[in-house]
């Protein structure tokens, strides 16, 4: 199909269309809505053969998608923030019932105070739900990851739902040139959905998701954890195969940028990683040995990859666009857990960019230089530091 100028959300709609989804259900919420509008447009024009079910809430949207997936449809939904939390019960249900659903999450800060702008609190709230969590940085990666997500979800060693996240407005509403693959190539890459053993079938009736007594509940949780372990390998393979078909890949679980020989590695997730890469470029020009690691998979978490990456690193700077109140940044906690008892570089954690406040290259550069100063004993840094908190918002004159 060639290059089209698409927003992140339209790229997601193209991704779902190319994946030949045949069931869509969603409820409108800013900044997600343009995805479903575009998909509705495809269905209306006859370009996509799919059932689009309008519902009265996100809880029902996820319930509808669960029902469709349970009878073998390739199902898609998308939401943001409050909408995601309204469907939260059903989210766990989808994973527990082992249904290969794909959901787009356009990350939006939670209320109150109301916000429609990005941070990663909503996406990261799915951390323990059994969903595979992938995060894209731009429109091209959104389209590509939606297609990859179905291949991961439907892999028989995985059979878990996949959420693909991207940042509100910065990714969702910014138009960029996107290479839209040809349908025939996508069809060759992503075969039709196969049937699976717990697919509902009127000829062989059973109920899905029923009561389990203490004697047999744990086994189903163990199976999800085992499937997550398989997913590590599958995510890598699916991404490598994507490269062979389409000439693009994203490093699987994480993207490493100029990390070779780096003594400081910045860890980020989402659109702002692009600004982080600019900061790395600027500092590399000045001779600093600095690299960036962009987290692409939050679950399964790239534990081995991070250990490998940090083998010869002096400091890790994790910039979290989220906060786990009472602890610190969520990604920093995960990175620390991965590195504990292995080899411990100094780990610094910055909380930034909540509610859509900019994280630009200049800020990341300043933070990296501060870490350099700390390493050389010229400055001090708290284990967790918020940047850019404005006194004039907090206090009277």
């Amino acid at each position, binding site marked *: 199909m060639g290059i089209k100028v698409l927003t992140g959300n339209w790229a997601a709609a193209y991704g779902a269309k190319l994946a030949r989804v045949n069931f869509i259900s969603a409820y409108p919420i800013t900044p997600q809505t343009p995805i479903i509008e575009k998909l509705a447009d495809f269905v209306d024009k006859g370009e996509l053969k799919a059932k689009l079910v309008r519902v009265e809430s996100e809880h029902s949207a996820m319930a509808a998608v669960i029902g469709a997936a349970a009878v073998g449809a390739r199902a898609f939904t998308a939401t943001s923030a409050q909408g995601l939390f309204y469907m939260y019960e059903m989210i766990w249900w989808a994973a527990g019932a082992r249904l290969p659903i794909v959901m787009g999450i356009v990350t939006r800060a939670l209320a109150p105070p109301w916000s429609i702008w990005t941070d990663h609190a909503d996406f990261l709230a799915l951390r323990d739900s059994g969903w595979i969590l992938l995060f894209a940085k731009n429109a091209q990666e959104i389209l590509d990851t939606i297609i990859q997500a179905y291949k991961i979800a439907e892999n028989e060693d995985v059979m878990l739902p996949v959420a693909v996240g991207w940042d509100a407005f910065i990714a969702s509403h910014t138009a960029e040139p996107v290479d839209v693959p040809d349908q025939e190539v996508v069809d060759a890459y992503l075969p039709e959905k196969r049937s699976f053993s717990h697919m509902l079938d009127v000829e062989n009736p059973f109920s899905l998701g*029923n009561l389990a007594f203490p004697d047999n509940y744990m086994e189903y949780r163990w199976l999800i954890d085992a*499937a997550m372990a398989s997913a590590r390998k599958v995510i890598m393979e699916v991404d490598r195969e994507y490269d062979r078909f389409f000439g693009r890949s994203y490093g699987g679980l994480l993207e490493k940028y100029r990390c070779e020989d780096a003594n400081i590695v910045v860890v980020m997730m989402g659109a702002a990683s692009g600004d982080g890469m600019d900061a790395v470029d600027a500092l590399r020009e000045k001779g600093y040995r600095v690299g960036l690691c962009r987290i692409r998979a939050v679950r399964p978490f790239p534990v081995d990859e991070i250990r490998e990456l940090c083998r010869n690193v002096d400091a890790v700077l994790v910039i979290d666009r989220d906060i786990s109140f009472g602890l610190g940044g969520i990604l920093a906690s995960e990175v620390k857990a991965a590195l504990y008892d292995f080899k411990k570089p100094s780990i610094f954690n910055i909380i930034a960019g909540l509610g859509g406040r900019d994280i630009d290259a200049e800020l990341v550069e300043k933070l990296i230089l501060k870490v350099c100063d700390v390493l050389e004993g010229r400055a001090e840094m708290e284990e967790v530091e918020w940047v850019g908190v404005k006194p004039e918002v907090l206090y009277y004159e």
Partner: protein
Amino acid sequence: MKELRYIAPVALPTTGSLGKTGAWRVMKPVINYDKCIKCMFCWLYCPEGSISEEEGCPVIDYDYCKGCGICAEECPAKAIEMVREA
């Protein structure tokens, strides 16, 4: 390698997997076949699947009927009476 069972919690329908739940009953629905018009509404509404059809007539399986009374409530001919268990 051993063959994996279902990876998701699946229940195949079997009668009485929870034991004879009819023992929970306090009120017992009794069909008066002289009044019964064989509309099978009771069969349709029974949430437990405890009513079956035999030769065109509804028959209650008291081993599993919990005595909820929905059949008596829905019967258009008022042919089902709820009787206290002895």
